């Protein structure tokens, strides 16, 4: 039996989604984690040493809508609570929604771990006329309670100072007498069969009776052959209860939280809604919502597709690399290296510098920089969760709800991260369909930029044809997948966080963090890809592949036979392949450009995405998806070749 825990001194940040845990984590550790104004940004536990105490480790846990845990991210948080040797918990709550915060406190308080409560975003609460009597709340709970504004750094010093005063909270409620008997019996059994070295048996009993699967797994592991006794006790408690026991327990916690919140909150009467609230309502308005969406897409297109992919790429690729850096570097290499194969490896047609670094730095970097910036602005504004409302009807056609738009939009940044983010979806069926569609029809930022840059150079019609084709394929494939996969669609219920003016510094920090990740991931892969292309070329395999691919690439897709090389490159990363086509754009007709980009967009995603698909869905399902996607990409590309020749 494994009862060992990680070393002491773990401080866990716990709270509802989108209450500012990750911003607080960054403030307290200096470590960067992705932060956004929508729920579900953090799907895994992140840890780092704190600035204020080098012996302490701070853990940023995924937001929990409620405990007992149900979803994957809630299970991840509960697992951290079970397995970390916590010095204390810092519950981060939304000051303007104290009732909900205290509902979670009511359960965390039963775990018997010292706690501090950070009431974050108290500036937003004040703007809405909500004032919390922090001192009274602290007295009622018996723990330090601090008002903070994590984004502005307000209250952070007080928070770190209060950690030494963390206390085990007083219970917020005594449950109904019958429930208390069940809880006491279960707690005694847990103490006897699977005592937790840190967490109180009473808290574990409430969670287990409430149906927490992470606690059940832990008890199973600890009690081993005695687990059936605990399970039988749980089932018997459920049968003795008139109604659903987990629901009734949750209701009592909610009532206790309501009562306490009402006693410490004061509300000023406001005559009119805030500007941010009015703006938020316009964005999901039945009439104005779609025009606003189209305007947002147009601005993003102008910034990424025109400014990034045309102006900046022109400056970097032609003016800097082609005219200055590449000739200079080629002359230098030829002057100092006498081995022809080595100089060709560095500055030849498939040279590490002339192809690998030029693609990564001159073609892709300006595009992803502008995309990440635009995406960061949208994330921090609170616009993305409102997209779920606008997209809900469309997504209902493919058996999903509007929540799936979040991983899809994130996929426009990076399909790998988006695949991980599908954990915010509630059912395995929704996750499988969304991961399939991400792999099939959602281009990542690098590829999107290349597509916009290449097709934007052809005409706006070419961009439109490509975009409509992708949308149609996405909907059709999703529709078929939803019909083939058993299970039912879950209606959308979602929180709409406040619209906020993005802070430039935060957006730049986030853009910088993503660019660092991009450069670390992409440059080695681009160099590896270039080396593979060089090796294939030198060994004579590339010409053979190009010849072998001619019937498919030239005959069916109508592309020059040299485009086969782009598809070989596409096996490593779709955007690497797309960049290969971009580089030969001058020799392609408009139809060839559109067909090539449609085929490569549908092609298998990058190696990192494939690994993530295997991690999330298992090798069998992931490879099955690839086996469908590759022939489908060529099939659809050929169909568009025939169709566009007939009508364009």
């Amino acid at each position, binding site marked *: 039996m494994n009862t060992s825990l990680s070393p002491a001194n773990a401080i866990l940040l716990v709270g509802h989604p989108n209450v500012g845990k990750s911003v607080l984590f960054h403030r307290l550790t200096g470590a960067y984690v992705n932060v956004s104004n929508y729920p579900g940004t953090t799907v895994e536990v992140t840890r780092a040493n704190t600035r204020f105490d080098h012996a302490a480790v701070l853990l940023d846990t995924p937001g929990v809508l409620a405990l007992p845990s149900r979803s994957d991210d809630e299970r991840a948080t509960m697992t951290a609570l079970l397995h970390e040797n916590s010095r204390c918990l810092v519950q981060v709550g939304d000051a303007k929604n104290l009732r909900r915060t205290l509902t979670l406190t009511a359960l965390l308080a039963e775990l018997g771990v010292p706690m501090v409560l950070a009431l974050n975003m108290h500036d937003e609460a004040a703007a809405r006329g909500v004032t919390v009597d922090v001192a009274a709340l602290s007295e009622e709970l018996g723990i330090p309670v601090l008002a903070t504004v994590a984004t502005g750094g307000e209250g952070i010093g007080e928070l770190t100072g209060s950690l030494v005063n963390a206390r085990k909270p007083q219970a917020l409620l005594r449950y109904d007498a019958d429930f208390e008997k069940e809880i006491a019996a279960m707690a005694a059994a847990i103490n006897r069969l699977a005592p937790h070295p840190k967490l109180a048996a009473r808290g574990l009993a409430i969670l287990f009776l409430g149906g927490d699967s992470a606690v059940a797994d832990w008890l199973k592991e600890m009690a081993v052959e005695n687990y059936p006794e605990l399970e039988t006790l749980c089932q018997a408690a459920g049968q003795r209860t008139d109604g659903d026991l987990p629901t009734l327990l949750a209701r009592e916690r909610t009532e206790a939280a309501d009562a306490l919140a009402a006693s410490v909150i004061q509300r000023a009467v406001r005559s009119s809604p805030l500007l941010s609230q009015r703006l938020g309502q316009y964005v999901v308005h039945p009439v104005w919502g779609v025009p606003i969406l189209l305007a947002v897409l147009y601005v993003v297109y102008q910034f990424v597709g025109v400014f990034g992919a045309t102006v900046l790429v022109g400056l970097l690729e032609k003016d800097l690399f082609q005219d200055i850096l590449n000739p200079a570097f080629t002359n230098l290499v030829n002057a100092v290296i006498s081995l022809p194969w080595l100089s060709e490896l560095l500055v030849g047609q498939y040279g590490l510098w002339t192809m690998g670094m030029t693609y990564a730095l001159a073609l892709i970097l300006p595009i992803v920089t502008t995309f990440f910036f635009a995406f960061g602005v949208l994330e921090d504004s609170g616009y993305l969760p409102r997209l779920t409302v606008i997209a809900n009807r469309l997504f209902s056609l493919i058996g999903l709800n509007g929540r799936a738009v979040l991983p899809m939009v994130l996929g426009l940044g990076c399909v790998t991260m988006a695949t991980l983010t599908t954990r915010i979806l509630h059912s395995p069926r929704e996750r499988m369909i969304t991961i399939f569609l991400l792999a099939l029809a959602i281009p990542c930022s690098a590829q999107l930029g290349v597509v916009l840059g290449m097709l934007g150079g052809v005409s706006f019609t070419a961009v439109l044809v490509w975009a409509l084709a992708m949308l149609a394929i996405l909907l059709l494939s999703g529709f078929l997948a939803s019909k083939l996969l058993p299970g039912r669609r879950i209606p959308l*219920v979602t929180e709409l966080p406040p619209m906020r003016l993005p802070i430039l510094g935060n957006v730049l920090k986030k853009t910088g963090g993503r660019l660092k990740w991009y450069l670390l991931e992409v440059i080695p892969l681009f160099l590896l890809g270039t080396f593979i292309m060089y090796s294939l070329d030198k060994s004579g395999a590339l010409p053979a592949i190009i010849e072998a691919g001619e019937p498919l690439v030239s005959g069916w897709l109508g592309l020059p036979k040299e485009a086969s090389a782009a598809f070989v490159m596409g096996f490593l990363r779709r955007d690497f392949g797309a960049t290969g086509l971009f580089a030969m754009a001058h020799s392609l007709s408009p139809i060839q450009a559109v067909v090539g980009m449609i085929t490569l967009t549908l092609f298998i995603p990058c190696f990192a995405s494939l690994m993530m698909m295997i991690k999330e869905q298992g090798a069998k399902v992931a490879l099955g998806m690839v086996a469908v996607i590759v022939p489908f990409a060529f099939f659809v590309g050929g169909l568009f070749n025939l169709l566009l020749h007939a009508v364009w």
Partner: protein
Amino acid sequence: MSPKHEARLPLAFITPGTEVRLAALGDEIDPLQREQLTAYGLAENRPLRVLQQKPMTVILADEVELALEHAVARHIWVEIETPPG
């Protein structure tokens, strides 16, 4: 039974701008989704303000905006506190 209003109406039928009080979550709502609603703070007697009904029902519960599909909102029973005005 409420002393002021006897009728319990589905949330999906309420005109935007109306203040309502939550009466009950219908049995038709999936248990997991019911837990989700409770976690968002939708408990009995909770005052709510209906902000819009299209394309989805959007309500303000305390200071939190929630969007609910009509398939869910039509099984949430409310009593009218203040008509729109």
